[in-house]
């Protein structure tokens, strides 16, 4: 099989798709804006539900793309693209022009900037961190407060920047609940003495083995789950964090002092993706992610023939789903090359 494909974005979806496309005999150009491949996967210490190290998956993906058919352009952004006849012409930020028969966008997601929820005090109070900051701590092995002490009481807030009309994100980011459970367990493992409290609106444990992890968190690790969204974070005289929530099941307001507060930041359409959507007149949904041409059998297809999507640029997804989505994109691209394009 012959033909050329440009894959924009070298995260999980981009790497998996590039590897599979190359195997099918297509020549692939993989463009990644960062110096290194891997995208958000590089930030993850352990993955849920089995707490496999993120590096393991990353190295599998890296092995995928060591292939003669793949040309790598890292540290290179995409400025825009045009479709001339059946050909795509992609302009890179450094001025290169790449021609291709098909394009696959795997531009991924951006983490919700938690400063936007000012009442949670991220960027204002020292000991308010995000889930991503915590993964970094797990990486370094040093879980501590700003003053170097080990936290003893830790709160986790679900749904920060997801399911929130106030920040314009009405959708559920899907991963935060299970991430919270995973991180709570890991915190408990790392700091034996600490107490962990999860503040949730709904526990959405729909994925394979998620519910089991939730149960484990309760039974084995004694994590407390409180149904109520945190509405305000402040500090007391001794600079300890104080959160306000309603314990909706008890029906009473709840105040709690905490050493560390972890915000489960949601996923948002990436800024790069939005730029490309604007430049290429690609349709986006109400949630600002790329809109697939069909929800059931066209989840990889766009409104432009020959341009495909894979991964979290279309909706929040976990690693498993992202890899599957990348593979289904590859099969769509191969079909396109074989029949539709001619």
């Amino acid at each position, binding site marked *: 099989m012959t033909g050329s494909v440009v894959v924009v974005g070298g995260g999980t979806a981009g790497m998996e798709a590039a590897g599979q496309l190359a195997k099918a005999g297509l020549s692939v150009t993989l463009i990644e804006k960062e110096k290194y491949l891997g995208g958000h996967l590089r930030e993850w210490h352990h993955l849920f539900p089995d707490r496999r190290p993120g590096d393991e998956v990353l190295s599998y993906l890296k092995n995928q793309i060591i292939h003669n058919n793949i040309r790598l352009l890292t540290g290179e952004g995409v400025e825009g693209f045009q479709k001339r006849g059946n050909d795509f012409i992609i302009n890179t930020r450094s001025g290169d022009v790449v021609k291709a028969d098909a394009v696959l966008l795997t531009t991924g997601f951006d983490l919700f900037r938690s400063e936007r929820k*000012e009442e949670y005090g991220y960027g204002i109070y020292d000991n308010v961190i995000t889930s991503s900051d915590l993964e970094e701590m797990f990486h370094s092995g040093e879980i501590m407060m700003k003053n170097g002490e080990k936290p003893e009481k830790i709160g986790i807030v679900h749904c920060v920047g997801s399911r929130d009309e106030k920040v314009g994100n009405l959708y559920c980011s899907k991963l935060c609940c299970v991430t919270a459970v995973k991180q709570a367990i890991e915190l408990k493992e790392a700091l034996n003495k600490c107490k962990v409290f999860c503040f949730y609106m709904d526990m959405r444990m729909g994925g394979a083995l998620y519910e089991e992890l939730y149960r484990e968190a309760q039974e084995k690790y004694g994590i407390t789950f409180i149904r109520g969204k945190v509405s305000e974070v402040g500090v007391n005289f001794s600079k300890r964090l104080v959160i306000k929530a309603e314990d909706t099941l008890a029906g009473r307001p709840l105040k709690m002092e905490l050493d560390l507060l972890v915000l489960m930041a949601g996923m948002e359409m990436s800024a790069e993706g939005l730029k490309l959507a604007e430049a290429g007149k690609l349709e986006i949904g109400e949630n600002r992610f790329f809109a697939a041409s069909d929800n059931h059998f066209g989840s990889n297809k766009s409104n432009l023939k020959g341009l495909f999507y894979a991964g979290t640029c279309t909706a929040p997804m976990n690693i498993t789903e992202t890899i599957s989505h990348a593979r289904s994109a590859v099969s769509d691209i191969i079909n396109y090359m074989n029949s539709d394009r001619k």
Partner: protein
Amino acid sequence: MQFDPFVIPFDLGLYFILIYAVTRSIIWFRELSRPDKLRLQRGFFGKAFGQSLKEIFLESLIHRKILKSNLRLGYMHMSLAFGWFLLILFGTIEADIFGEKHLNAPYKAIFFKFFNPDHGKTPFEAGYSFLMDLILAFILSGLVLAIIKRFSSKAVGMKKTTKLKTLDKIALTSLWLIFPSRLIAESLTSGAYGTGSFLTGTLGSWLASFLPASQMAYPFWWLYSLSLGTFFVLLPLTRYLHIPTELFLIFMRNSGIRTGDKAGSFSEVEVHSCSSCGLCIDTCQMNFSAGINNMQAAYLTKAIRNNTETFDIAQNCLMCGRCDQICPVGIELSPIRMIQRRTGDSEISYTNTWKGYFREKQHLPVKKQNIRNSFDFLPESNPGKADILYFAGCMTHLTPSIKIAMTSILNASGLSWSFIDEKGGACCGRPLMLAGQDKEARELINYNSQIIWKSGAHTLVTSCPICYKVFKESYYLDVEVLHHSQFIKNIIDDGSVKMNFLHKRVTYHTPCELGRSSGVYDEPREVLRHVANLETTDFDNENSLCCGGSLGNLMLSQENKRKIASCTAAELTRKNPDFLITACPLCKKTLAPVTKYKVIDLSEIVAESIVTPAVLKKNTYRFKKTVRESVGVEKS
């Protein structure tokens, strides 16, 4: 010729309207409160009289304010009002000079041409005819604009114009017919007698060339008289009542009468003075940002006049005060809206009687409300003694950066201060007031007042303009109430703190409750000039926009709030500033999610640029004096 039956409709209409005007003025005067009666009497025979005459000339005739904000619309109003006035004035003089005798009945002046058809033969007469034609042409040009406006409001530079009721339509038609019928009647008479100037003369001779002019003229004189008569009789039932009422309003206002918080003569006069010009609709953000155009001030006054349902109209408003600012008649629209919000709570209301020719004041029995002690759960609070109290306000608790910034500024000032609602306090009462629930609000006011009294403080600083307004206006406190922008300005001025200049470009959003509502425009800007490069925007000071998050509107959906906020943020960040600065936690919360620019409070940028915290050695008494002097109040 001395009399002709066709003048009867005009005469009847004229005497009807004159008697009506006198009666209604007497009713309005009688219903004024005693102090207001005295004010009006003093104003009528005092210095205010001259001022009123001047204002009547400038506003009721020339329409200066409309001209300023919209030239074409202003011209339309001016040509009709001023033109008609000139026509009557010079018509009377004409009848006086050229008529058979002096001091004629009014109809002689109005239908002068009919009774003196051959007037205009001598050069002097011809010159006068030219003047009269010129005035008529002036009016007709305005009338053409008015007709175009009715069918396409954009033609006069208006985006929206008011909708009409049936009686308004009849009155409008008769008004529109007055001048064309006069033109044709005069022209035909002139044509028959070979008189008339450039307009009536030319048109007349042309018409006479193929029509029996002398026979045709008579029906048009009838039409002219009938349209005048109809217009006068319908006038009290329509918005055209504003023409005579506005004169009354100007006298009342210049005598120092204000709307207050209850319906009364003055608010009635104001409501009837609204000409439905529609400027308030164009300036309203609910209209141009959210596309809601059924609740603007012009519709409110109309609903009150027509005695129709006002609840939704009164409630669905941001209370930003932009319409107060632009109203060419100077009606206090926001206070009138507040009166409507309080109905049900207040005992006075007006209903139409006599088929709408009169309105009757009604004393409604106030519904017994079981609202006593609704806030008796509030705990006793003792803030401790301090010179300065800081009241963050409910909203500020959702913007911790402002709380932190204010804490560091207050510490840096070296003054003894206490944070009264650090752990959350009672609401200031303003939100309840804005919803028209004054009695409940009073309960909270009493509660907060006690806390402030106990502390023995001399200054109260607040971060929230909503709180600032109510503390300043509705609390009876012996403390200086300062918004934090004023407080910061004071401590910069008296040297308590020194500032670094941050090389940042900023624009400033004036919060409605601080700006138009409380008149604090300069202090925040002066503070900002100390710390950053303050850029101007198209919407500064009195013309500032509302962020959309206003507590004034209970009904507005989040979606529409967001639309308004987006427009406002876009306008204020046209110059790509580093920061969009505001001085209200609610504005900050509303604007921050809808713009990519960083929105911060004034106190945050100040806290960032303070050089060294002053040592605790300040003479607080000196400060107290400075504060009082700078506000221009000496403690009695």
